[in-house]
């Protein structure tokens, strides 16, 4: 007997859990940047290649989740948050995973050599960038509590605080990026030009990880403010 019931069919699948799952997978990608660069700086290219494969796999998985998420988002779904904000957050989240994979791809493909004098700053810069993605995950993980309160009260203030912290972290990443660029600028004449070009490119992309994490936070703020 075909079973359809007005009460059970009324309830759609909440988008919040899948969004959180997607974000934790994304952070799994970005957080592997640290061991990857550790390996790259140590010239352990085999290990770096393994890490790249792992990131690649997680990124594929995240893509799959993204697709599923979008397929489960018919326009007839009535949600406490705007559909476009959710899809926007998802897109930003996903680009963090893409960026992580791209960064590793370039570095691995070119077996990129990071100048000794910049290595410490470079690693610090990466760590801060990853931190922003982790902070964004922390904020996204509050979504179920936000839903529980119906998007009001202390919980909103708490999430807004998390987002403010995220903004501050992004500023710190910016500062580190400027410092790193300046350091590279000072020695760029001594390095092969194409190599320098790609170094700038990698720095840009790492900075973009933090920017995108901040965008996730900003979009989340919009979503709460509906």
């Amino acid at each position, binding site marked *: 007997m075909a079973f359809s019931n007005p009460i059970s069919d*009324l*309830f759609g699948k909440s988008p919040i859990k899948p969004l959180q799952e997607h974000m934790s997978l994304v952070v799994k990608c970005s957080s592997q940047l640290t061991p990857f660069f550790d390996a790259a700086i140590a010239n352990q290219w085999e290990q770096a290649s393994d890490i790249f494969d792992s990131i690649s796999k997680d990124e594929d998985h995240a893509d799959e989740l993204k697709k599923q998420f979008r397929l489960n988002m018919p326009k007839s779904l*009535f949600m406490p948050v705007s559909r476009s904000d959710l899809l926007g957050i998802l897109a930003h989240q996903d680009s963090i995973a893409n960026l992580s994979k791209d960064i590793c791809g370039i570095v691995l493909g070119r077996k990129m050599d990071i100048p000794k004098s910049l290595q410490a700053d470079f690693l610090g810069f990466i760590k801060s960038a990853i931190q922003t993605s982790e902070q964004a995950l922390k904020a996204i993980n509050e979504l179920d509590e936000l*839903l529980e309160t119906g998007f009001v009260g202390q919980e909103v203030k708490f999430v807004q605080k998390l987002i403010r912290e995220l903004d501050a972290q992004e500023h710190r990443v910016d500062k580190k990026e400027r410092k790193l660029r300046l350091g590279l600028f000072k020695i760029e004449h001594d390095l092969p030009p194409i190599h320098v070009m790609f170094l700038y490119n990698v720095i840009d992309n790492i900075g973009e990880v933090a920017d995108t994490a901040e965008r996730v936070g900003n979009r989340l703020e919009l979503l709460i403010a509906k």
Partner: protein
Amino acid sequence: MELFTEYGTLLIILAGMFGFFMAWGVGANDVANAMGTSVGSKALTIKQAILIAMVFEFAGAYLAGGEVTSTIRKGIVDTAIFAEQPDYLVFGMLSALLAAGTWLMIASIMGWPVSTTHSIVGSIVGFAAVGVSVDAVNWDKVSTIVASWVVSPVLAGTISFALFRSVQRLILIHDNPFERAKKYVPFYMFAVGFLMAMVTMLKGLKHVFKDIGVQLNFSETAVLAAIFGLLVAFLGTYLLSKVKRDESLEVNDRFANVERVFAVLMIFTACSMAFAHGSNDVANAVGPLAAVVNVVSSGGDIAAKSAMPGWILLLGGAGIVVGLATYGFKVMGTIGRKITELTPSRGFAAELGAAATVVLASGTGLPISTTHTLVGAVLGVGMARGIGALNLRMVGAIFVSWVVTLPAGAALSILFFFFFKGVFG
């Protein structure tokens, strides 16, 4: 009338069978819908839900179901027109029961969200308007009923919206939601008890009071209802005192303990839901049966004022229980598995909003659809940003089912009417 002396027993047995069939359908589907929210939010197990349903459905039907039964029995058709031909009323009510039951069967096989109430009203209107004459339908009453079908989900939605907003204001926005929940939940329990007692005494027990010579005015009733509400709140407070905060639950979900408090409240709203449902929907099966029994046993005297025999209500109650036990528990299980997103703090708001609306309708004698009212109530909570995702296509499906059910029930009923007329007439 000759017909009644000759075939009276057969007609009553037929009506009893059809009425039982109808009640079975109510128990298998409608009750399961009404109780499914409690099961879905894990406030009750299926077994507990069935037990509560059995007791409170019956209490609702017995204590507050009189007005709706009388509407179904003699409010939709103009009984004066049938005075000359009481056999038509008997055939008609038999056809209406059979038609509504058949239509419900078809609809549930096809998976359409059809309401028992709409089916029976459509069927009664059908046989009266086509089988007898257009004037045989009390159109004023019918249009009031149809209007109430639109009003009831909206009203339930509004109440549920307000209830959930009050929960946000009083409990959820604060730093210590657990303590605040324990403090304020008894007030909601009071509201549950007060509401049920008020409607029961104002409407249901009117004749009982008259029989024992008690006369209560409105304020006396209100005081008594308030006392009953207080008793309910005390019982609830006692149950709440057993809910201790378990910090280990809050690791993953900071509101886990708050929801445990609301789960206790949901036991009460589930009772009120079953009561409300019993007061409104049991009449769908019992009303036509009562009309048949009344006419047949008085030998065709439509105007005869006889009290409804107790066995009719028992038969209705038994049908519901059997429906629950044979099929309803499955439906409840399916609903329970599917609506995991509904937490007790929302489930209670939806149930109480729906129960209040349905009980109000029962008091005014309006047969409405409990399921559709509950859908409206859930949407109300959704409007207050309380539920993760609601499927609005369901609303469209319900709307279509309204448009289809009335003519479908009517057509089937007309068919059966002429069949019965041919066989017995």
